[in-house]
């Protein structure tokens, strides 16, 4: 009994009208999927685990856009700006302080820098009354400016301490993420790194579920649906948008740190136009207003794109582009919310049928 209420209390924090999956059935499926994801590295090589880890990192980046765009209506191409800032910062700090302590320090510093950049950019946009498509334009321009800037930092004068920015050649030699106390430390690579990414992805997902289903989540959805209206309920929409944008920047920054540590390398392509549009594509295909959709679409799309690339096709991007077009035209709300809706109605029908055949009126939990 007490076990039940504990689970209900736990679920209560993460459930609500703003996320899909508010039933026991969903959580059972979620637990199974999570168990499979955790078990995956046991059956594959370090290389394969590391490969999937990259998609998990991208999924964290996608979550950062889902919350900013899908939940608060602010279309940002700038998630890669915070991603790249954090990646470069992680590299600069770790190359200067080459120890476990340096790495452990670099993580919060890099995420902090990304957060600060997001806050600053967001402050000038939202308090400067920049809205709608102009936010998209400004964020897009930020990525282009950064790519152009970073691309010309090849000269030896572009160094911060021991860290050479490296221009188009990028910044090699970034260490793996390592945690430790004193002599003992653990470096995360291969399968271990995969598990780290998975844990951080799940934590981000749960954190955002709690955020979107909490009081602030209602304010976010209110801003997305009708800014004027929610302002007339006394909400400071600039503050709501800035807060979400900053949170999104922090999450994108976390992904950026993992990315730099994953490849032990970062270069200006993280600021490129192509890369900047990826999060928008992932989130659109998965379903803007679904955190889970963002994660699933990112992992599937990136896996798919890689398969195409490996088999020698140069049309990977074209195929992904076509898929985006089809989704936008046929399922504008994204694939995952559509599948979820179908599953829920099928489940309801099935339950009705069972009820009828049994002839009882036992109350079944109906997923929403």
């Amino acid at each position, binding site marked *: 009994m007490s076990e039940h209420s504990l689970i209900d209390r736990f679920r209560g924090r993460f459930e609500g009208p703003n996320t899909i999956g508010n039933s026991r059935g969903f959580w059972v499926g979620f637990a199974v999927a999570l168990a499979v994801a955790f078990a995956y590295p046991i059956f594959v090589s370090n290389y394969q685990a590391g490969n999937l880890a990259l998609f998990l990192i991208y999924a964290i980046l996608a979550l950062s856009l889902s919350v900013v765009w899908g939940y608060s209506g602010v279309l940002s191409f700038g998630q890669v700006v915070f991603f790249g800032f954090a990646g470069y910062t992680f590299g600069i700090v770790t190359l200067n302080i080459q120890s476990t302590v340096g790495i452990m320090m670099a993580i919060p510093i890099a995420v902090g820098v990304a957060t600060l950049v997001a806050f600053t950019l967001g402050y000038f946009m939202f308090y400067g009354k920049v809205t709608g498509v102009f936010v998209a334009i400004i964020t897009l321009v930020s990525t282009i400016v950064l790519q152009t800037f970073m691309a010309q930092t090849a000269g030896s004068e572009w160094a911060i301490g021991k860290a050479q920015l490296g221009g188009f050649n990028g910044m090699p030699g970034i260490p793996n993420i390592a945690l430790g106390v004193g002599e003992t430390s653990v470096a995360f690579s291969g399968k271990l790194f995969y598990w780290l990414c998975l844990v951080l992805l799940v934590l981000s997902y749960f954190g955002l579920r709690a955020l979107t289903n909490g009081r602030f989540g209602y304010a976010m959805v209110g801003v997305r649906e009708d800014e004027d*209206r929610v302002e*007339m309920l006394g909400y400071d929409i600039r503050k709501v948008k800035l807060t979400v944008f900053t949170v999104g920047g922090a999450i994108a920054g976390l992904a950026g740190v993992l990315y730099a540590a994953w490849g032990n390398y970062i270069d200006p392509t993280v600021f490129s136009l192509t890369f900047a549009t990826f999060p928008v594509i992932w989130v659109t295909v998965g379903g803007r207003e679904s955190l889970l959709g963002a994660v699933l679409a990112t992992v599937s799309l990136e896996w798919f794109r890689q398969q195409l690339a490996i088999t020698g096709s140069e049309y990977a991007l074209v195929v992904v582009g076509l898929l985006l077009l089809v989704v936008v035209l046929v399922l504008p709300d994204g694939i995952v919310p559509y599948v979820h809706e179908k599953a829920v109605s099928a489940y309801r029908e099935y339950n009705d049928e069972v009820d009828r055949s049994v002839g009882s009126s036992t109350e079944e939990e109906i997923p929403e």
Partner: protein
Amino acid sequence: MTSDTETSTSEADANRSGSKAGRNVRKTPAGNATGVDTDTILQTEGLTKQFGGLTAIDGIDFAIDEGELRCLIGPNGAGKSTLLKLITGHHDVTEGDIYFDGADITALSPHERVRSGIGIKYQAPAVFDSLSTSENIRLALQRTRSGDLSEAIASTLGRVGLSEQRDVPASDLSHGQQQRLEIGMAAALSPSLLLLDEPVAGLSLEEREEIAKLARELNDDGITLIVIEHDIDFVDRIADRVTVLNQGEIFREGSIEEIRSDPEVRKIYLGEA
């Protein structure tokens, strides 16, 4: 060109005439004044709004007493909605000042005005489609209240007669129900002044009756109301006093009988010679 003094009959009019008389010398906001102005909840002084070359509101001195239910009427383009949007801060003023509860709110942003006690329901229904009826109310309530909101939500829903629709998505409500939901959301903030922009436009007679009853009830609870309305019968049913706007200026002010029988008003507003 205003001729307010002609219509001064009631006690409220005496107050207004008094404030009018003192207008030219008084520079302090309403709340700092003594005597006749202490009941004034909202006052505008020389309020002007220009859109490019168009003067939508032309130096309006408008005042409303606490507890009043005032209707704002006037032909299309008279500036009614613009006046409302100036009061809420949706539009910036070109010239003039707005005082609410004794404080100058001219420079405040819309959400700050709402927090100081001004509620509004705009003309176009704008409920949050993706949320249920009760969640719409929750959104209104949660900013100022902590703890469990279910009781407050239930009482607000009861007040606007939407208890049975509590779990229905707001997008599935009828037009009339959406209007009531919106009024409920605005009222849930416990404003001291509530502005309603054409709350019965496009509603059936029955629905109009419900809104009229709701407006009167809110007024009885001590909320001052300003209602923009075209339907003169609806105005007749709810209003204490009526202000007629024409071409961005206050044309007349008085009781509904006075307004109805005023030949000038009939000419500009009711289209009668």
